[in-house]
């Protein structure tokens, strides 16, 4: 897998998403409270706007989630699945911390 450097780990706040550009793909990148990293597609499949990174991070019964700020559907950060409407999902991307840099794997 090819890895693309995105930003310094320190520039991510806990429980807060940021948008990133992976080639042409808008990606939403999250760092959760316990330091885990997740990357999913930034485009909300229900409205087509690039807003997932601006959603609120949390959990549903322990599953880490993000809620789209547009119409509030909740997605699993691990699988990208929409927990309110199984069958719909966001693309997910491999993500890792290398030293102090966050990298996303190109699909």
């Amino acid at each position, binding site marked *: 897998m090819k890895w693309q450097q995105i930003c310094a780990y320190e520039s991510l706040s806990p*429980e807060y998403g940021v948008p990133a550009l992976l080639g042409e793909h808008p990606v939403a990148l999250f760092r959760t409270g316990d330091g885990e990293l997740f990357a999913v597609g930034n485009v909300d499949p229900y409205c087509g706007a690039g*807003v997932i990174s601006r959603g609120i991070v*949390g959990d549903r019964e322990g599953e880490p989630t993000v809620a789209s700020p547009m119409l509030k559907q909740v997605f699993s950060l691990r699988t990208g699945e929409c927990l309110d409407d199984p069958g719909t999902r966001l693309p997910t991307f491999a993500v890792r911390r290398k030293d102090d840099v966050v990298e996303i794997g190109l699909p």
Partner: protein
Amino acid sequence: MTRTLIVVGHGMVGHRLVEEVRARDAAGTWRIVVLGEESRPAYDRVALSSYLDGKSAEDLSLVTHEFLDDPLVDLRLDTGAASVDRHARTVSTTDGAVLGYDALVLATGSRPFVPPVPGHDLDGCFVYRTLDDLDEIRDAATEGKPGVVIGGGLLGLEAANALRLLGMHPHVVEMAPRLMPLQVDEGGGQVLSRLVGDLGLTVHCGAATQSVDADEQGRVRGVTLADGTTIDTDVVVFSAGVRPRDELAEPAGLERAERGGILVDDRCRTSDEHIYAVGECAAVEGRCYGLVAPGYTMAEVVAGQLVDAAGDGFPGADMSTKLKLLGVDVASFGDAHGTTGGALEVVYANNAAGTYAKLVLSDDAQVLLGGVLVGDAGAYSVLRPLVGRELPAPPEQLLLPAGSGVDAGALPGDAIVCSCNNVSKQDITTAITEQELTDVAAVKGCTKAGTSCGSCVPMLKNLLSECGVSTSNALCEHFPQSRSELFEIVHATGIQTFSELIGRHGSGRGCDICKPAVASILASLGRGHVLDGEHAGLQDTNDRFLANLQRNGTYSVVPRIPGGEITPDKLITIGEVARDFGLYTKITGGQRIDMFGARVEQLPEIWRRLVDAGFESGHAYGKALRTVKSCVGNDWCRYGVQDSVAMAIRLELRYRGLRSPHKLKSGVSGCARECAEARSKDFGVIATDKGWNLYVGGNGGFTPRHAELLAADLDDDGLVRLIDRFLMFYVRTADRLQRTSAWIESLEGGLEHVREVVVEDSLGIAADLEAAMAAHVGNYSDEWAGVLRDPHKLARFVSFVNAPDAPDPTISFTEERGQIRPVSLPMPSIRQEVRA
């Protein structure tokens, strides 16, 4: 073949009859002519008094558009029936028409009884029955003066309260030795007198009115009682009982009951098979009923006969009553006076607390026959449906305050929970389970229960929980507490952050429900800038970018324009900014100028220019105070009586930035013409000659509502003080996303309770609420200015973290009417599978 039904009287019962016939007569066999003597179509007479307490005639109306447009209903207002010719089967109207009928229903109600004391017909004497009566009383009332109500029954006390709302000092004159002699026994009467006295009513019991006295112009100047007492007053309201309006009966050869009323059998038929009588004018088997519920039952009985030629007879009536509006709880139900042979009484009186309760039981103490509750009628909604049934618990347990011993579970299915609308427990629980109702409003809408006098509403709540509808307060899976409980926890413990709160009082990591709610609580309590550190991640996108998210992922920018007043220079700045950044501009209903289409990365630059020009955040994005709309007021408007612009600006600047459970809107009108539409707002202010009237709990939106009067004729500072208290009380105790109207409805006691807390300081928290608001005002600083000063916050306003200026490919615009418009976005395929 269509037949003609004439209904005489468009009051509550006449209207219900027409509605019932129309609902049952699917084939349209009846054409209905309704003659109504009043100038308005039927309205809720039971709620008449609320007309002086903020409700409009429109609010009280019982008719819908569909009804007025119904081609089979011919409603003639301002038209009375003058006589009935039974042989020709015609009705002559007061405007000279002669109308033929196949069936005739008399629903003429009753008229107030005015005892023939000397002076009873002077200018300044009124009765209390119609909206017109209330308009006349309102016009005659002078603030600060005494007013006299003759009659201390249920209606007399309502009328006295009405005078009180009009700013008068009411005196109540009652012939019997106690107030509400029909409903309340001696013990209850004593407690009642004291409670009513505390409210500022002067009570004269055991007192006969000797005369109403005139001044030189022949207007009322006072009232003299039999013991020589005189009361100086120019307003006298008679409320000494009612008499059925049976005047059409005798000339038509219809029989009247011994004590008045059109005599009918248990199917509401007169001696003429084509004529029925229903409501207060009817004497069913010789007895008249002065309440609306039995009238509604009669309407159903007759509609059944007209349409299905069948149906049951009149089953008798529940004469239970509850005093509305005075802020004193009084209820009586069933055989309140223990007239049944061998009846036993159990009394619980607490003089210290000012409560009195009595149950009347059968001779073996097993069956509940009736009762009286004064001071605390909380148990009424449980006890009333139990009348005639075996007690579910020992009587003392039923009587203890809070009606603690029993709940909805104790009621049998066929017990009538809502007597106004004749809805049984079973009807309600079936509706709840089958229609999956989840709140009281839905139950009201579906079953009509709770829509009239409202006394059964607490029971509806109980039934919801009995049906397993979780009325749990838990905010979400992460917090077992309600929003108001969390507010108190944060307030009391001084907790500063979400993680501390969830660590100590919740579980998990939070979600899009609890995070913004807690963010709002922290912001209301002034715990830092909304984008400080951890706070940023709690915010809904709007608060995160201090702008309103639009459908294509761009934001709108809305600077504050307090009270809608703006200088030409500022207008020009807005125009220049919008032009330079290519934004769509629109003037909104809230007197703001919105600029749409800004990208995240443009927001700081746009705001830098606005802040430099003296603008600040308008909070159009937040669950916060949005706008205080104003009219032009007395500076410019020839009708204005106060400076509505200055007041609107003062209020908007005072409450700007206040985070609340739901967005808040306000308006200030310079006179009753109401150009600022203040009564559709969460808090609205309307100028009077003497100051300001404050209305609360209005809103537009899905279920629009008019705000209701909280307090009248306030001076500037008094107004601000009450709004401070009202808003803080709301911010502290409302549920998440609960509008002020829903919040008021959800409080036990509703608006009256709000008035007690906010105006009368019944909980002793007014000073605390004011201090909290003062702290908010003191802590305010412009959020956008704060962002522009802070590089860390600014760093978040980028299109992409690794390409801060690259435009987002999902955003594009076209042009329409000379401005930009978002292009509908190409939807990604929803069910795509992408492997990591």
